[in-house]
């Protein structure tokens, strides 16, 4: 049953890839709508008291478990809700852009992966969802892959999150080693702090905390719906979801470090947002900063505040990005220089944008006020109240500052506009989150109670929060200039690149290492080649040796032949002649002897008698 909500968007993604491009958005939006309806149904079931758990056969002893309890059902609903309206917005946005198939397939895949991540109750499927979201992000940022900054941003995002994913792997391995089970929501005592730090490391990367926040700036090179869905509401929130899901495991000594990370990020990223010169970059830094709020809240010991801000921030930030996307279409850029006073030409969009920005700053009774108040209260009530609360307050002030600045830049001034963009879909996409921004604040506390989480409350926090919001907005609107060109501002704007940043300390050494291994490889290649050639030469030498032997044998043969010739001649001349001579002699003798047999019988008789007498004489002489 739960698996359906994951399978539907995956099927939609496959459908997008297989069908024609003009039908792509229909398939994807249908998938998203079905997911939303299913999510609503799941929440209804859970609210009726029936939590749904599905177990699947996974690895031996490690089954895949999908569980829709109170927490995951609500988060699921928020994810699908935001996704559905961003999908609607994207129909309008992508109608003017290229790369539709990649976009829609990637978005559907991302939706499926995010749902898997939210619903999973065992670490293996959680990691699967985590990795798939990272992959979908990689693909989606590079939708316009013919642009260099899109490719670079996509690679940077993927590499940084990949490295920090190792933290998640390490943490999960340690959890598994210590407990022997991969189920997430079992209570564990005394987990090693290394596992806690490893998980913190993963969160730092995925949720763009210091020092890994720079990938989010690079990810802005993707289409605005991607920035809106992934990099403000859901993917970066996956880190927070990890913290919330594993909160019961984290050892107590890790929490201050978590809070410290969150606190530093709030201030650092907030400053980057104040000094930024591009609307989307400002929103990216602001996302980092607000995620810092959530991390701080978890570190302070109040995961409820983090969950509240997670839900609120999803609506606020995604709607801010959607507005930025409309102006990006018209002005072909989101740099503040280009979109000066764009709000005057799109008054309704500007109104929605201003609503979200005010919510971000924390103006009551919008939803942002309630959630920020919860974080401030969490900071105040925690152990190191001074640091946490001051960081949170500074963050609130900075949020209001850059919100005011952005609003001012978008309204004051002169500019032209094309007005030729079809904004109907995009406007529709923006309206519904806006409604929730206005009305949702009152529902936060009951929702949190449904999720079994506590939302801290403190009057001092409320007062300080409102003060910070109002002061910040006013200052931002009135006083902040539109461009900061000095060196300090540049340093902050570029995400604090220290001594050359990652490029110098990580990327270039890695590339050098790669080059070195290529040279080593080449040397090895030459060596192997050389050995081969040497043996070849050796074989050729042996062959020459064989040739020599051949010549030798031939020579012997020639000698034999020559000897044969000589003997032949000597035979002919010598022996043959001798034999012939003897034969001739005897022939002549025979001829002469023939005369004895000349047919004259008388004479023959005479010879025989003479011979006989001679014989007798010999006998007498010899006295025999």
């Amino acid at each position: 049953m739960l698996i359906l909500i994951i399978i539907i968007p995956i099927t939609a993604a496959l459908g997008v890839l297989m069908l024609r491009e003009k039908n792509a958005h229909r398939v994807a939006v249908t998938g998203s709508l079905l997911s939303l309806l299913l999510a609503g149904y799941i929440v209804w079931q859970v609210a009726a008291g029936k939590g749904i758990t599905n177990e699947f056969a996974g690895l031996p002893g490690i089954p895949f478990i999908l569980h829709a309890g109170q927490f995951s059902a609500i988060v699921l609903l928020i994810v699908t809700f935001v996704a559905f309206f961003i999908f609607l917005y994207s129909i309008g946005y992508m109608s003017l852009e290229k790369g539709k198939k990649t976009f829609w397939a990637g978005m559907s895949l991302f939706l499926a992966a995010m749902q898997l991540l939210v619903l999973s109750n065992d670490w293996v499927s959680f990691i699967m969802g985590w990795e798939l979201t990272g992959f979908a992000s990689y693909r989606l940022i590079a939708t316009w892959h013919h642009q260099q900054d899109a490719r670079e941003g996509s690679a940077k995002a993927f590499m940084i999150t990949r490295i920090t994913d190792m933290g998640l792997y390490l943490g999960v391995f340690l959890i598994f080693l210590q407990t022997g089970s991969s189920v997430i929501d079992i209570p564990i005592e005394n987990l090693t702090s290394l596992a806690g730090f490893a998980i913190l490391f993963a969160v730092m990367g995925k949720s763009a905390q210091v020092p890994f926040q720079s990938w989010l700036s690079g990810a802005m090179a993707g289409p605005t719906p991607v920035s809106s869905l992934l990099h403000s509401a859901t993917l970066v929130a996956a880190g927070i979801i990890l913290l919330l899901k594993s909160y019961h495991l984290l050892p107590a000594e890790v929490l201050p470090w978590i809070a410290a990370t969150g606190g530093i990020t709030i201030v650092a990223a907030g400053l980057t947002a104040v000094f930024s010169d591009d609307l989307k970059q400002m929103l990216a830094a602001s996302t980092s900063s607000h995620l810092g709020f959530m991390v701080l809240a978890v570190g302070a010991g109040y995961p409820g505040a983090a969950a509240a801000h997670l839900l609120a921030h999803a609506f606020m930030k995604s709607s801010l990005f959607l507005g930025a996307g409309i102006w990006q279409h018209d002005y072909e850029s989101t740099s503040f220089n280009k979109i000066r006073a764009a709000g005057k030409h799109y008054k309704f969009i500007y109104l929605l944008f201003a609503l979200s920005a005010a919510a971000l700053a924390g103006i009551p009774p919008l939803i942002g006020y309630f959630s920020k108040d919860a974080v401030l209260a969490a900071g105040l009530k925690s152990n190191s109240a001074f640091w946490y609360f001051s960081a949170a307050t500074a963050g609130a002030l900075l949020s209001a500052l850059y919100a005011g600045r952005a609003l001012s830049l978008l309204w004051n001034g002169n500019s032209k506009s094309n007005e030729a963009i079809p904004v109907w879909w995009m406007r529709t996409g923006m309206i519904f989150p806006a409604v929730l921004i206005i009305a949702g604040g009152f529902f936060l506390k009951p929702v949190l109670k449904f999720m079994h989480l506590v939302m801290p409350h403190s009057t001092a926090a409320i007062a300080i929060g409102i003060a910070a919001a109002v002061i910040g907005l006013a200052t931002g609107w009135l006083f902040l200039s539109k461009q900061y060109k000095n060196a300090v501002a540049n340093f902050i704007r570029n995400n604090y690149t220290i001594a050359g940043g990652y490029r110098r300390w990580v990327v270039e050494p890695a590339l050098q290492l790669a080059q070195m291994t290529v040279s080593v490889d080449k040397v090895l290649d030459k060596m192997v080649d050389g050995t081969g050639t040497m043996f070849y030469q050796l074989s050729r030498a042996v062959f020459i040796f064989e040739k020599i032997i051949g010549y030798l044998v031939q020579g012997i043969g020639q000698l034999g032949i020559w000897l044969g010739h000589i003997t032949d001649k000597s035979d002919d001349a010598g022996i043959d002649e001798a034999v012939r001579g003897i034969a001739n002699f005897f022939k002549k003798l025979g001829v002469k002897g023939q005369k004895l047999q000349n047919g004259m019988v008388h004479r023959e008789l005479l010879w025989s008698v003479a011979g006989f007498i001679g014989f007798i004489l010999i006998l007498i002489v010899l006295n025999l």
Partner: protein
Amino acid sequence: MELTASLIIGVVLFGIGLYGALSQTNLVMIMMGVELMLGAAMLNLVVFWRYLHPETYSLQMFVLVGMTVMALEAAVGFAVATQRFRSKGSVETEEASNLKEEQ
């Protein structure tokens, strides 16, 4: 004395036979000469037996064998002569040059 005289008769006979075999051209006359020589040889045999060892009988057999040989040889010789006469018309040895070896 008788021995020597008989031997001389034998020799004379042999000589006549030899002269006859050598000087005669007719095959039959040559055959006669050969017979005479054989007879003379047999006479010698008998004389030596009569005057030296008259008690040994085996020589008589030897003479008989000799006589048989004479007869056989004469038969064969006359057969050849007859055959020669039938083919050539004469038994003169001087005309028998076609018996020579072919050159």
